[in-house]
C-alpha cells in the first residue's frame, strides 16, 4: 500500500515537472467585480491555447494591485484606476504597470423588490449616502416602503478598500464628501445584493452583473432635467448611465509572449463576447453573430 502511494506521488511529481516545461502559467488576481469574468476568460482561453494555464483569484482591487506591485502576479484586475501613489510604489519595485480597459461596468443601485421608488437623481443619491446628507428616510423621497420601520433608509456599502467603494464615492459623493457614519460595510459584491434582499428598508450599490429577481435596480438620472436611465450593457457603453466605470487589467511592464497573447485575445471579439455574456458592457459594440 505504502509503496503504491510513493509511486503515485512520484508519478504526479514527474507529471507536474514535465508539464511545466511546455505549459506556461499566467497568474491573474484582483477585483471581486471582475473575478467571475476573469474565471470565464481563463476557462475559455484553455480552448484557444491549451498550453497556457491562467490561475485566477479574487480578493479585491487593492489585493490584486498589491500583488502586482510585489511582483507575484502577471496581470492584476482592477475596478478602478491605479492611484499615482501605487504607480510610484510599483516603479520603486522596478515594475512599470501598463493599463488595459477590458470592459465597462454599470454600478447599479439596488433596493428591495417591494420598494416602489421610481427613480433617483445623482444629487438625491448623494444626499442619501453622504455624511451630513439631508435624506435619511424613505418618506422624504415620497415613497412608502412596506415593512421598513420608521421609513428609515438602511445604507449598504462596501469595505473601504474595495474598488467599488472608491468608485461610488468618487462618482456619487464627489471628492469632498465622505460616506455617512453607520453604513453596513459588506465584504463582497454579492453580499450587498443578499443583504438588500433580506432587508426591506435597504439601499445598496453593486455591479450590474449581480442583479437577482429579489432586488430592484433603480433608474438613475444625471440631474433634474435628464431622463432616469436603467443600467444595462448599452447605457453603460454609451455612457448615458451616470454611474458606469471602466474595468481594468494591469500587466507587469509592456506585456510579452503568452501574457500579450492572452490580453490580445481578451480584447478580441471572442474575449469581449465573454464579458458581454456576463452582464457587463464590452469595450466596443460587438458585431452580430
Amino acid at each position, binding site marked *: 500500500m505504502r509503496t503504491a502511494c510513493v509511486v503515485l506521488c512520484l508519478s504526479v511529481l514527474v507529471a507536474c515537472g514535465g508539464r511545466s516545461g511546455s505549459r506556461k502559467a499566467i497568474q491573474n488576481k484582483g477585483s471581486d467585480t471582475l473575478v467571475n469574468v476573469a474565471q470565464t476568460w481563463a476557462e475559455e482561453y484553455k480552448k484557444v491555447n491549451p498550453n497556457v494555464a491562467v490561475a485566477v483569484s479574487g480578493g479585491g482591487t487593492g489585493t490584486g494591485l498589491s500583488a502586482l506591485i510585489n511582483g507575484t502576479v502577471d496581470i492584476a484586475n482592477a475596478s478602478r484606476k491605479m492611484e499615482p501613489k501605487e504607480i510610484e510604489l510599483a516603479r520603486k519595485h522596478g515594475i512599470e504597470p501598463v493599463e488595459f480597459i477590458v470592459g465597462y461596468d454599470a454600478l447599479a443601485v439596488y433596493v428591495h423588490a417591494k420598494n416602489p421608488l421610481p427613480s433617483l437623481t445623482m444629487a438625491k443619491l448623494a444626499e442619501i449616502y453622504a455624511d451630513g446628507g439631508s435624506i435619511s428616510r424613505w418618506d422624504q423621497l415620497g415613497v412608502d416602503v412596506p415593512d421598513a420601520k420608521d421609513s428609515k433608509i438602511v445604507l449598504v456599502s462596501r469595505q473601504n*478598500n474595495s474598488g467599488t467603494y472608491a468608485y461610488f464615492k468618487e462618482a456619487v459623493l464627489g471628492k469632498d464628501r*465622505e460616506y455617512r457614519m453607520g453604513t*453596513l*460595510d459588506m465584504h463582497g459584491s454579492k453580499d450587498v445584493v443578499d443583504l438588500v434582499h433580506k*432587508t426591506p428598508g435597504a439601499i445598496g450599490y453593486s455591479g450590474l452583473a449581480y442583479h437577482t429577481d429579489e432586488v430592484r435596480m433603480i433608474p438613475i438620472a444625471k440631474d433634474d432635467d435628464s431622463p432616469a436611465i436603467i443600467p444595462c450593457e448599452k447605457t453603460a457603453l454609451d455612457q448615458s448611465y451616470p454611474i458606469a466605470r471602466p474595468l481594468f487589467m494591469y500587466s507587469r511592464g509592456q506585456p510579452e509572449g503568452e501574457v500579450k497573447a492572452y490580453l490580445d485575445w481578451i480584447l478580441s471579439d471572442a474575449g469581449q463576447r465573454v464579458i458581454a455574456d456576463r452582464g457587463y458592457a464590452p469595450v466596443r459594440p460587438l458585431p452580430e453573430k
Partner: protein
Amino acid sequence: MGAAPEIHPRPAAADRRDLAWWVDKSVAILVFTGGISAIVFILGIFVFITKEGFGFIFGSLDIGGFFGSTKWRPTSTPPTYGILALLAGTASVTGLAMLIAVPFSLGAAIYIAEFAKGKTREVLKVLVEMLAAIPSVVWGFIGLMVMNPLIINAFDVPVGLCVLNSGVILGLMAAPIMTTIAEDALKAVPDTYREAAEAMGATRWQIVWKVVLPAAKTGLVAAVLLGVGRGFGETMAVLMASGHSVNLPTSVFDSVRALTATIAAELGETSVGSDHYRVLFTLGILLFVVTFAINLTADLIVRGIRKK
C-alpha cells in the same frame, strides 16, 4: 544514555543503537520541539505585530484623535484613524454577550456540578463540549441568515445585523467554555464543605448559595474573564452578525463594527508597509494587550485557587 549499565556481557549491548534507541531519541527531540515551539511562536507573533504596529504608533499616531474620534476612514484623503466607534462596537457586543452568557453558563455549571446525576450529567457535559466545537463561521452564518430576518420581524426594526444579533451569537459561543471552567471550579470545592453544611441542616440550594459558590468564587471569576477574552477576540461571527458598520451604538438594534472584524476585513487589501496596514497592526497590539491582560488575570486567579 550511552553509558547504560552493562547487563549483558556482549559488547554490542553496552552502547545499544537499535531501533528502540533511535525511536526514543527522535521522540524526545520531537516532543522538545513541540514544547518549545509554543514559546517561539508567541514571541515571533509578538515581535511581528509590534514591529509593524510601532511604525504607526511612533510615526503618525495622534493619540487624542485615535481614541477620541469615531471617524474611521483609512482610505480617504487625508485618511482619519479614529477607533472610538470600533472600541464601542467591541465593548457593546462583548458586554451584551456576557450579560447573556454569564447567567446561562453559571446556571448550567451549577446544575451539572451540583444537581445533575449519572447519565444526564454525562450527556449534558458532552453536549456542552460539542457546542464549543461549532466553528465560528457557522455561528456567523446563523447570525446572518437566521437571526437577521428573525430580529427584523420580531422587533420591527429596519435591519437585523446589530448588537443584539452578534451579542446573542457571541454569548452562545462563549457559554460552553465558561460552563466547563465554572464547573471545574465548583468541582474543586471539597465535598467536606458540602457534608458539613448538610450536617447543619442546610437545603441543597442553601449549600450551593451559601457554601459552594463563595468557596468557588475565584474560579467563577476566572471563567467569566476567559469568556470575556473569547468575546473580545472573536472575529468571524462578529464580522458577519454585527452589520460591520462604523457606528456609536445607542440601542441594541444599532449595527456596529468590532476591532477584530476591521482587521479581518481590511488587512488583505492594504499594500504592505502603508499607514493603513500599520494602523491595523496597531489595532492588533491593542487586542493582544487587552486579551493578554484578561487571560493573565484569569490565570493568576486560577493559580490562586490551586495554592489554597
